[in-house]
């Protein structure tokens, strides 16, 4: 049984997804949360290309879906990071605890 098969590629994609989710829960800075989301997206893209190579024969739909996915990832990064910049300009702080109050002070 060769090591390079669909099951192992999917397991690798799942592990990447879990690592990214762990980062989303663990990180406090909004930028690093976005970075963990990129790790999760990386795992999903790996699963797409693996399915394409092992199961879909001559179709290249997985590659197309990958291109769609990085388009979405680019837009998500641009919008998310500009939101982070606005939050930083308004509050001088981009930790999760500060943002979860959304303008209210700690005492409120």
């Amino acid at each position, binding site marked *: *049984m*060769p090591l*390079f*098969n*669909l*099951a192992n*590629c*999917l397991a*690798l994609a*799942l592990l*990447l997804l*879990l*690592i*990214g989710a*762990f980062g989303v*829960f*663990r*990180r*406090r*800075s909004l*930028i*690093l949360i976005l*970075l*963990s989301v*990129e*790790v999760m997206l*990386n795992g999903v893209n*790996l699963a797409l*290309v*693996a399915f*394409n*190579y*092992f*199961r879909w*024969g*001559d179709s290249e739909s*997985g*590659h*197309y879906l*990958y*291109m*769609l996915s*990085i*388009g979405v*990832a*680019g*837009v*998500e990064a*641009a*919008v998310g*990071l*500009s*939101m*982070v*910049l*606005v939050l*930083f300009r308004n509050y001088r702080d981009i*930790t999760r*605890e500060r943002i979860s109050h959304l*303008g209210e002070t700690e005492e409120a």
Partner: protein
Amino acid sequence: MPPLLIDILFAAAAIGVLVLSLAVVLVKNPVRATLLLIASFLPVALLYIMMQAPFVGILQILVYGGAIMMLFTFVIMMINPAPKGGEIPGEAAKPFGPVRMIPWLLLLIAAGFTIILPVYRAAKTLAPVAVSKPGFGSLASLADLLFKDPMNNPFTVSFELISFLILVGIIAALNFSRRRGATGKSDAVV
């Protein structure tokens, strides 16, 4: 390529991706985390090339590693969240401690035994479908898929629609970054 060499390459790339991604999640310095994420894209690109997707591998490095990650690096360096010692203040305090992680771990183990393990076993028994198309995964082949017979090709329309998505993203980003008072009104409401 001999199958043993492919297996060794796959194992090395997989371990590299996992270690680098864990480092992305665990290091304190945000600039280092971004650079580690770019580094973790290199073994992923190797995996794509092994899966006969050379153009996707190139996209991964050029577009993902080169463009999107540079955006992150720019923003991190712009707002400079590391005033002392390269650490974000308070980043060391763990909001997600080991005790609160136990139910999630239990859920994960349950999911592993009920869903993930059967799927893994089933995927292991599936025979791979051989690729016979010459130039599979190359730029010319993908261009054929996307733009051949553009009047009846559903891929063409959806691919062009990505540009509208990017346009919407640009407008949203510009709207967010308008400075208060630049237009006379207060904006940038978050």
